[in-house]
């Protein structure tokens, strides 16, 4: 088993994103570091548009993630609704 | 292994001895004396004697080491290209077989102030 992770800048815009990721990935661990937030999860992590939209109260294009993304690890699979990070191990 | 290339590929060394106007490069270092972060690069005349190298270049360079004063330079163990080597102090570098870019090292067993804890 390996961790995938996503790191976002710590700011107002990412508050809802982090919350949404936590809701959709109960197995994920959120680590707050200076100026950034790292979210680790064993093997797989999903970022779901619908959850973010619900929390933000507006429509959200998953590609907006790029604005506040710091880094990530794992294979990326992106469609209109979900961005998935995974390792095959 | 040859370089994989689209056309014949020939490199030219930038540090060929003919680029040094009759001088040559020699690298020198004192084993287990890492106050000096890296071996020294020296540009020397091949006619310089080994004794002159020690007196004029190496001794001043290593002064800062607490062991420097205690070295018996006639007794140190020398290596050239990582092999034991007995230099003739009164002969030239060329006569001592010290080629361009050769690395010489010396060892002073028992002298080890800054590494003593190690």
């Amino acid at each position, binding site marked *: 088993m390996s961790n995938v992770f996503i790191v976002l800048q710590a700011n107002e815009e990412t508050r809802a994103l982090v919350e949404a990721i936590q809701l959709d990935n109960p197995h994920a661990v959120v680590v707050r570091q200076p100026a950034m937030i790292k979210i680790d999860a064993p093997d797989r992590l999903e970022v779901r548009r619908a959850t973010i939209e619900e929390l933000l109260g507006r429509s959200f294009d998953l590609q907006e993630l*790029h604005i506040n993304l*710091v880094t990530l690890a794992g294979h990326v699979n992106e469609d209109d609704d979900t961005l998935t990070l995974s390792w095959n191990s | 292994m*040859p370089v994989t290339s689209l056309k014949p590929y020939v490199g030219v060394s*930038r540090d060929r001895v003919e680029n040094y106007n009759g001088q040559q490069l020699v690298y020198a270092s004192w084993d287990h004396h890492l106050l000096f972060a890296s071996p020294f690069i020296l540009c020397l005349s091949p006619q310089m004697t080994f004794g002159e190298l020690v007196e004029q270049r190496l001794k001043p360079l290593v002064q800062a080491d607490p062991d420097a004063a205690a070295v018996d330079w006639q007794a140190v163990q020398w290596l050239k290209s990582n092999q034991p080597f007995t230099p003739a102090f009164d002969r030239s570098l060329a006569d001592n077989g010290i080629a361009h870019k050769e690395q010489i090292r010396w060892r002073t067993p028992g002298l080890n102030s800054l590494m003593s804890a190690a």
Partner: protein
Amino acid sequence: MDMKVAKKKLPLKEKYQYLTRDLGWETTYQQQEKIFPYAEYEGIKIHDWSQWEDPFRLTMDAYWKYQAEKERKFYAIIDAHAQNNGHLHITDARYLSALKIFLQAISPGEFAAHKGFARAGRELPGIGTQVACQMQALDEMRHAQTQIHALSNYNRYYNGFHAFADQRDRIWYTSVARSFFDDAMSAGPFEFMLAIGFSFEYVLTNLLFVPFMSGAAYNGDMATVTFGFSAQSDEARHMTLGLECIKFMLEQDPDNLALVQRWIDKWFWRGFRVLGLVSTMMDYMLPKRVMSWREAWEVYGVENGGALFRDLARYGIRPPQGWDDAEKAIDHMSHQFMLGLYQWSFGTSFHSWIPSDEDMAWLSAKYPTTFDKYYRPRWNHLRKLAEAGTPFMNTGLAKLCQTCQLPSVFTEPDDPTMSCHREGRYLGEIYHFCSDHCQTIFNDEPEKYIQSWLPMPSLFQDPLNGDVGAWMQWVSLLNGKDNGDFVGSEDEANFQLWRGLATKNQ
């Protein structure tokens, strides 16, 4: 057609397909081999470019939109930083050494990557790959520029930044980074992708950017945090491209495995060496430290790299050959570099210093098995010399590794008291290396590496002929201003003076 029926929206993947892949065609007036002349000589076999999976599917309109938003944020912050004397917010002017190294050695690398990705974006025959490379070429230009712009204001107030463009091609330590990028760019497009896209971006840049930028945040440097995080947000795309590229090569033909593995071995080690200086920035140059190099390596090297190579094992890939030796070097390298930088600081366009008692206490806590045993005695001795008024300046210049071009400051993997001496002969001439891995890289392509422009040996050639004063002029190094010990430097004095003006009423 019923006018009221709205067109069905194409799903992202399909739409992206039409907006990129489908733009190409089978050429008939000119042959593929002439259009893509560099695609085959390296020996990588690609049978079907359509199998390429696009990692992120940004069309240009989305790219412009999101990148513009990043740019607006970035320049707002650095404008404010310049207007409000943001440079006085940093914890201490020592910190600036890390930024000076960054501007002199890393930013030019960003430009080189820009150029290299433009070439790869033209030479690789698959459209998906080309577009991703082109976008990266554009991003790398952004990184070079945002770094120069962020650090430009520091240049107005502090020494050591002013000649970064001259020093890129001339001063000794920048040659390490430049040779790395020159090496990748002189290779074919596939090796370039693996070198920069995979090894550098995927395996190593997290180590450079994430802890370093966190460190900048800790040390009050908003300008750097901003360019760092802003650049890193593009890196996420770049890393994904690098990973996709390697999977693609491995999936296309089993024969590619041997070559890919050799390149992974080579470029991991090249990258590990070139990013080695980051260890010194983290352990010594941040006045307020966020994590040690060892800790960063655990998170971004061991954990992340481990996950990556476990994943790639299904293709037959094993971790890079140098991995174990890298692990052995982690607890030593920052100290070995800093000891070197301190004693050669007359030749650096940044300052070094002897760590304080407090610094040393931190170092010994973070490196319990190595610092007190191997490195503290040397620092104590150097301090004694400095206090006696005879600070140590090592006028014996350094032996450089023919491959990585770093001074040979490294020790044997299993004996930290013994310098690592490696040498070999090629066509009668002797060449020296810092490690087994650098020697292997040389032996694989000697005709390439004998060409290395090594700054130390070249100092003894025409026209400088060993004249250090003339050399300083040639590298635009202002003696007594840019170089030497931080203690007693203009930077130190000015920072204290200006901070005093800002905090006191006299």
